[in-house]
């Protein structure tokens, strides 16, 4: 009996070891960033399209204060509360000390310079689809922003969600650089797909999640419970949203809905980001949204 337990224990340990080896954090190889030179002016567009300020600006920041990426917002989720880190260019308390390779590894692989897995509250399942040049441009722009000396606080996560090693298998299931919408019907919708699926991370709220917090790709943008508790995030597929492309683009630019009620809640921050994009980019996002496969209401 003891022998049997020992054998079982050995299998378990070996299995866990093999699982770790198969799913351990994998930084990008150095050649990935070779020859890349960032353009800060181009990076500003990536910054707003990527929605970085929505989470990384200080709580309640408005206007230019949204460019100070001090962190400090508390994101409530079913897995615990995440405290958003300082990603300002401060060398000590922010990410000013990160190389381009470190930065690209975080965005595309969800791995910190320390080699630890990052939590997917940071939407690297979206950013993994970014072009390397856009990553270089984004870093060049973020390096121009004001530094903040705010010191990071630990996340407030219960066991087992406080084990970063468990994110390895999670990533194996959920970190996929393939496009969700394989064949957008137009050039505009294809451009919109990049803005949404690689940068805007709309799906993080508008798509429901499975039991382990991965996005249910079969109900892409079909609406979901609000992770912060109250209410639901709406279904924005054509099954539920009948706004025209112009209406969608104008809403993202100004916050005004077709009936001229205006955005509130988390979408107010999204509009504050999107208002910095060109009309062409907003039209592209609208074309993509209109081309989404319809998802009927009523799922989880």
């Amino acid at each position, binding site marked *: 009996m003891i022998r049997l337990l020992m054998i079982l224990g050995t299998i378990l340990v070996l299995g866990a070891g093999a699982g770790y080896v198969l799913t351990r954090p994998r930084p990008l190889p150095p050649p990935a960033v070779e020859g890349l030179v960032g353009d800060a002016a181009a990076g500003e567009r990536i910054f707003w399209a990527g929605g970085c300020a929505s989470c990384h600006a200080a709580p*309640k920041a*408005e206007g230019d204060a949204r460019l100070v990426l001090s962190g400090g917002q508390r994101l409530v989720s079913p897995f615990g509360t995440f405290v958003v880190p300082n990603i300002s260019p401060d060398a000590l308390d922010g990410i000013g000390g990160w190389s381009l390779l470190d930065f690209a590894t975080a965005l595309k692989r969800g791995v910190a310079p320390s080699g630890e897995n990052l939590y997917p509250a940071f939407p690297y399942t979206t950013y993994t689809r970014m072009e390397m040049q856009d990553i270089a441009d984004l870093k060049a722009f973020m390096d121009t922003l004001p530094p903040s000396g705010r010191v990071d606080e630990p996340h407030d996560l219960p066991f087992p969600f406080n084990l970063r090693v468990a994110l390895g298998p999670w990533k194996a299931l959920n970190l996929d650089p393939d496009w969700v919408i394989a064949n957008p019907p137009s050039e505009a919708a294809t451009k919109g797909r990049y803005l949404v699926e690689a940068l805007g991370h709309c799906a993080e709220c508008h798509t429901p999640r499975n039991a382990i917090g991965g996005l249910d790709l079969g109900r892409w943008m079909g609406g979901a419970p*609000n992770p912060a508790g*109250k*209410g*639901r995030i*709406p279904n924005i597929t054509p099954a539920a949203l009948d706004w025209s492309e*112009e*209406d969608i683009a*104008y809403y993202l*630019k*100004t*916050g*005004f809905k077709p*009936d*001229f*009620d*205006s*955005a*509130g*809640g*988390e*979408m*107010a*921050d999204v*509009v*504050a980001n999107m*208002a910095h994009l060109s009309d062409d980019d907003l039209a592209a996002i609208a074309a993509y949204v209109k081309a989404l496969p319809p998802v009927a209401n009523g799922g989880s």
Partner: protein
Amino acid sequence: MRLSQATLSAAVISLLPGLAPAQDYSFNVAARKGEMDLMAINTGVLGNMAKGKTPYDADAATAAAANLVTISKITQGLLWPEGSSNADMQDTKALPKIWESYDDFLAKWDAKAKAAEALLAVAGDGVDALAPALGKLGEACTACHKEYRQPDK
């Protein structure tokens, strides 16, 4: 003696907000919803011009912007009595936070008033002048809705 005791009890009870009978503020809520609808109708005149849905008309644009300025001048206190949040009653999305930071709430209304005045100043100058000013008004609307209105269910 009995009377004064009753008076005293009533006075004590009225000092305890939890025990005081809830006031019916449904008329105040209807009035502030009407105020929001008035703003939406006038913003719509301008917004549909900015979107290109309706042709630009300087007189209509100026009249709509002037209405938005007029609405901004309505004193807000009567429409937002304490005890009329979505925690107190049905059919309102007004968050209790309004009364926890009432000065900021009023400051956001004033910011919207300034955006409406800036809009009126350019509403007659063509759609290219109007559109960015309308965008600023939108910023003021969302800034307040973000903090103080319950998101849709």
